[in-house]
């Protein structure tokens, strides 16, 4: 999946996360995570983000996450939604599931 423009998904409300994905001119993946549970789950969240991006076949992006304690499924959904918007693709949800 190619990131064509900056896009955002999610909110900064409790138990959610706001995810912004933007093109990265350097052609790498850059993750900027700020989480209220950084100390307890920082590593785990990063791993989840990296895996999700890998599954989406994203190789180059700047990903910014403002996490307010989102559960894994929520964070994954926000990442996918932001990525879909940023790639300007119609998502085939059946295929994704």
């Amino acid at each position, binding site marked *: 999946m190619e990131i064509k423009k900056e*896009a955002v998904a999610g*909110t900064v409300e409790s138990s959610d996360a706001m995810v912004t994905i933007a093109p990265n001119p350097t052609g790498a993946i850059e993750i900027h995570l*700020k989480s209220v549970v950084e100390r307890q789950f920082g590593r785990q969240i990063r791993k989840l983000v990296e895996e999700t991006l890998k599954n989406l076949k994203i190789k180059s992006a700047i990903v910014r996450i403002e996490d307010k304690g989102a559960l894994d499924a929520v964070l994954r959904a926000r990442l996918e939604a932001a990525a879909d918007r940023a790639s300007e693709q119609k998502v085939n949800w059946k295929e994704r599931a």
Partner: protein
Amino acid sequence: MNHEYALEKINLSSKKEKKEVEDFLEKHQLLLDHDVSLCLVLRLTLNQKIVATASAAGKVLKCFAVDQDLQGEGLSNKLISELIHKKAEENIRHLFVFTKPENTFLFESLGFYVVAKLEGAVDLLENTPYGLNNFKKEIIEKRIEGNNIAGLVVNCNPFTLGHQYLIELASKASDVLHLFVVWEDASVFPNTVRLKLIEEGTKHLKNIVIHKGHDYIISRATFPTYFIKDDDKILETHARLDLQIFADSIAPVLEIKKRYVGAEPYCTTTNSYNKIMKEFLPTKGIEVVELARKEFNTEAISASKVRELIRENKLSECKNIVPASTWDFLNSFEAEKIIQKIKTTQSRH
């Protein structure tokens, strides 16, 4: 307490709805600024009362208030999230917020990062950790070593012989002269045209480096009152903030020790900006040198004079006060639309 809220976009052309927000803000000693173009509220489902509000004017978020009894329930999180999405729909993703220092922590918890702090008065934040840093990276790429490095901020709406004269003087007195072009597209001549005319009109000077000022030099984000007339006190605050960014984040990166500025005989806003600059920058170790304007027929040359002549159908007289490159542009096909716009509006810019 468990309340239910409904999010609502206020119809700003409805006097009744607007009044409701104004009354709510007034309870918090706040005003609904006249440049607000998007206003959101949260209403209590129970009785339809407004309990929180947040607005935006362009890329600046402003006029926030949350009912005292409901603070800490995450209402501002709801409003800010919605504002960010509404703005994204307008393709505006880089947002700014001015806030009292005591509320900075709140915005920091919502994904905002400090751009500049004005001791005890106001903090400016942006919704990305990369904004100011990327700007610094962009300008540092054009850094040149030297002993006597100076800076000059110009709008050039459009580029005149006055600008050329000022830049020539500053260039002659410096090893390196960094020229920052105001990038806010609030002027009748678009930023790309202004840049092109500056490049052409300064081609003969070899020690000049031209930068786009982006959001960090006299932009609607850092200096909203430059573009909208407001209280003098607010103007001063914003001017200081703009100069603080220059002194703390821009000048050190390029080792600028001196800032040149043209004397401003016409525009009172620019004049106060210059005055504040002369007081403030020296406290940060940057010398300010004000240069008198070049004159033609005992009248100071200015871009506003060019626009005035165009407005009065005296385009040919502009030839005396603009360089050949600008003159050629004014007579080009591309300029027709701009000239038409100048003639039909009375705007200061």
